């Protein structure tokens, strides 16, 4: 077996393990996770369909030498809802912009609402 220099017990996975205490680093990751699971429960897509889409997004980013698991998750989610004609990328971008504006225009401490 061709082995790279390894220090048993101190390899890269050891470092990864040290930061491996939480499922999600940021709330949006948890929300994106829950959205996919719920859409599956609603029957919008099968789980194999989901996995395939996620795997394709992971591969796409990996081709560029990048790795960002939950970004891939989010890309897969947007791709699937568009493919299922639930909404479109342009509509999503429009609503995201509206939310950005709503944050900017809401005084600190007040709940943020979307203008109709």
């Amino acid at each position: 077996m061709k082995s790279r220099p390894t220090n048993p017990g101190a390899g890269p996975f050891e470092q990864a393990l040290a930061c491996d205490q939480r499922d999600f680093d940021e709330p949006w990751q948890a929300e994106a996770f829950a959205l996919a699971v719920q859409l599956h429960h609603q029957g919008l897509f099968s789980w194999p369909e989901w996995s395939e889409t996620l795997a394709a997004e992971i591969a796409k980013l990996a081709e560029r030498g990048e790795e960002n698991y939950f970004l891939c998750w989010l890309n897969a989610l947007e791709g699937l809802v568009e493919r299922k004609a639930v909404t479109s990328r342009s509509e999503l971008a429009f609503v995201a912009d509206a939310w950005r504006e709503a944050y900017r225009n809401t005084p600190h401490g007040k709940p943020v609402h979307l203008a109709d």
Partner: protein
Amino acid sequence: MSGGHQHPPSEMALRVKALETLLTDRGIVDAGAMDAVLDYYEHKVGPRNGARVVARAWVDPAYRARLLDDATAAVGELGFLGLQGECMVAVENTDNVHNVVVCTLCSCYPWSVLGLPPAWYKSHAYRSRVVLEPRAVLQEFGVNLPDETEVRVWDSTAEVRYLVLPRRPEGTESLDEEQLAGLVTRDAMIGTAVLDGSPGESAGQGATAESPAASTPAPKVEPSPKVE
């Protein structure tokens, strides 16, 4: 930006908010159900479920046989049902065989018995390397196997999820099922740890110091690992 107003969240957070808004407006998802999903995956399922399966298999030979024959049914007997309609397969470590699980394409994982996968399980380094050089990867986890032990790597899919049935540690003959379950760690059920009989950490959600925020440094990997 003027003092009293709020900073918008990150681009990705805004994209998720947009999805939530549109899907909620269309009556496809609702906030209550999303909270329930998160509560379930963060608190109700986890490696403790898998540890109970393993401990039962150690003390009850008939259950062990059923688990190895049809893990979906045997795991279901204990009330742990896969929510994506997946099929479960249990693979048993023996004196001669060590099993380790991966999902090379994405992150398929036996959620119902192990909860959500750890960050390293989803990393490119683990996904690509464990297939090509399992012994080297296992060594980095601190698992040193004798040369004569055969290593089997199982690639999960959306349809089939694997659970490793670790070897019962020596000197645990006097322990009951509950105590045995306390020895079983998440990593042992993925195959990246072996049990030595000391109480398991991660079946509870092992923790030492608080974790550094945000990005988990992905393990480094060389561009295209050579086939051995």
